[in-house]
């Protein structure tokens, strides 16, 4: 029962939201619903942490035939982090989304994104996973183009076409896999694959197609081009929501598929995944250095940081996977908060061009601290959560005899620091140039000029979580190790779902 709540709650809110679309207090109802979602996620998380795994057979059909929802330690953790991010962005949007967007269903579609994301985390059936992807994509397409400004429409077309193509790859892979294996339930497919001594080569094309689908969704090199072309176009809070949830779902699914199916053909997949990881880390961070737009720099860094997570997966040791899970959670929080700060800068100044901005530390010291925490957590400075994540991953890389990759990860961390220092100097430290200020043309009216208390609260809460995640890392890391152990042992998952 509790397993279905993270899907059921956003769905019922979406239906309910039609009724108070034009009601003035709708944003507070949305915040309350997001808070309720955090509570149910905590319930799901604590129960999963106690019992290890939970499952729900939809309509009481037994496992290989019906649709199964499975919550293990990894997915429950992701649902919890996603709910926290969603609460922060919903609270943030109270003052940062304009009245028109709210009247035309901003909250409805943002809960649609949440439903799709939670569904993808909990799905135990590959076709069901595809349907949740589509729910999430459909809602995100609408949020991306919501408001219909010219640059938003441009970004949406790019985002939409490339994500649709990724769905086609994924569905074609599912079709081929079903033709070969004759099942859609993940546990059933895994148990059927385990019966082979070596993976039959004719199954690999299906998995290659599925891998390409996930790689496009997760913005891995060389499939990342949609992300920096579209993420800087919608209102900042939408970017924050997307950066926290969407690409991470692709990576989550990749980890899930790797731990259930692909590990059996390890000698083929490991070099591929590690190669993609290294390329993503390096190319993402180097392309970011040439940018001069706040959100574009952060968008390119998403690619680089997704590379870190995939590197942890590619090592495929318990330490590597635990590092990947911790890093994924840390990155969701820090990245979202960095975009929330970008939203506040836009709210105040009407532009995000680094060359024009300046003097923000003097006027808004609190927000400078929020940015400092999230940006330097991304760069991996102790005692913030990013340090723990990078430390775990690099340690795992050295232990797994991939010294070169560990060194590249360190080197990329240095470049990340460079980009973050660049933003810090240009936006927060450099004195504001009054000549340039006059030349500035206000672009869109994304924000309502009102008391930004809700924005401060949500961004401050996220910053607090990032600091706490770094200082009290030990229980979280222990939990990640437990989650990684159960991922490394797919027999547990198979037995639990099928019996």
């Amino acid at each position, binding site marked *: 029962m509790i397993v279905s709540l993270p899907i059921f709650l956003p769905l019922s809110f979406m239906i309910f939201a039609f009724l108070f679309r034009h009601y003035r207090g709708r944003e507070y109802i949305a915040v309350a619903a997001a808070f309720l979602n955090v509570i149910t996620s905590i319930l799901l998380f604590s129960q999963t942490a106690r019992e290890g795994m939970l499952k729900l057979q939809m309509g009481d059909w037994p496992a290989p035939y019906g649709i199964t929802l499975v919550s293990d330690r990894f997915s429950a953790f992701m649902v919890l982090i996603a709910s926290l991010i969603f609460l922060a962005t919903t609270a943030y949007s109270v003052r940062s989304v304009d009245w028109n967007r709210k009247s035309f269903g901003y909250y409805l579609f943002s809960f649609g994104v949440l439903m799709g994301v939670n569904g993808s985390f909990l799905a135990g059936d590959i*076709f069901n996973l595809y*349907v949740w992807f*589509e729910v999430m994509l*459909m809602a995100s*397409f*609408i949020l991306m*183009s919501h408001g*219909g400004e*010219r*640059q938003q*429409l*441009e*970004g*949406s*077309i*790019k985002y*939409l*076409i490339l994500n*649709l*193509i990724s769905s*086609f790859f994924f*569905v*074609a892979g*599912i*079709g*081929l896999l*079903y*033709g070969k294996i*004759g099942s*859609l339930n993940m546990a059933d497919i895994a148990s059927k694959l385990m019966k082979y001594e070596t993976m039959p080569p004719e199954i690999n094309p299906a998995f290659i197609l599925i891998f390409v689908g996930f790689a496009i969704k997760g913005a891995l090199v060389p499939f990342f081009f949609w992300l920096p*072309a579209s993420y*800087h*176009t919608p209102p900042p809070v939408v970017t924050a929501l997307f950066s926290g949830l969407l690409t991470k779902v692709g990576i989550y699914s990749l980890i899930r598929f790797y731990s259930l199916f692909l590990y059996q053909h390890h000698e083929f997949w490991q070099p591929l995944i590690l190669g993609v990881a290294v390329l993503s880390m390096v190319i993402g961070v180097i392309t970011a250095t*040439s*940018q001069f737009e706040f959100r*574009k720099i952060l968008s390119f860094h998403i690619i680089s940081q997704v590379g870190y997570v995939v590197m942890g997966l590619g090592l495929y040791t318990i330490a590597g996977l635990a590092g990947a899970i911790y890093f994924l959670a840390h990155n969701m929080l820090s990245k979202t908060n960095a975009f929330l700060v970008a939203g506040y800068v836009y709210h105040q100044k009407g532009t995000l061009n680094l060359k024009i901005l300046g003097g923000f530390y003097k006027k808004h010291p609190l927000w400078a601290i929020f940015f400092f925490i999230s940006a330097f957590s991304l760069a991996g400075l102790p005692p913030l959560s990013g340090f723990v994540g990078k430390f775990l991953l690099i340690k795992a890389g050295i232990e797994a005899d991939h010294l070169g990759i560990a060194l590249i990860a360190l080197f990329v961390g240095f470049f990340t620091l460079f980009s973050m220092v660049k933003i810090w100097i240009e936006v927060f430290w450099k004195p504001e140039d009054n000549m340039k200020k006059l030349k500035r043309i206000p672009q869109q009216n994304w924000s309502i000029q009102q008391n930004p208390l809700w924005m401060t609260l949500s961004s401050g809460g996220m910053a607090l979580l990032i600091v706490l995640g770094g200082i009290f890392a030990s229980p979280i890391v222990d939990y990640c190790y437990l989650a990684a152990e159960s991922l490394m042992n797919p027999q547990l998952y198979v037995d639990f779902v099928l019996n």
Partner: protein
Amino acid sequence: MEFIIAIFIGLLYACGVYLLLRRSIVKLILGVLILSNATNLIIFLSGGIQRNEISFIPEGSEVANPEVILDPLPQALILTAIVIGLGIAAYILALKYKYFEKTGTHDLDQLSKTDQK
């Protein structure tokens, strides 16, 4: 039969990719729709094409005979995929319309206003 359909799917993919690479946004959208249908046909093919009975449990019996019926699941999957495809087609056409209203162009090369100069 499978062989013919496989070649047909290949042709559809070729058409779809060709249309995706054109400059006009309308052709791009047509390409996406063709690709989505080609993908649906792949799922259809995964159940196998045979001359068999319809997938019903015969009257007076508790179970269907797996020897004579065809796997009905791929068809259910296609149904889902077609519905999703329909929704996406409606949305993408509306987006195209809105974009044309704003900019008055069908040209994909005009989509570079938000890129780095």
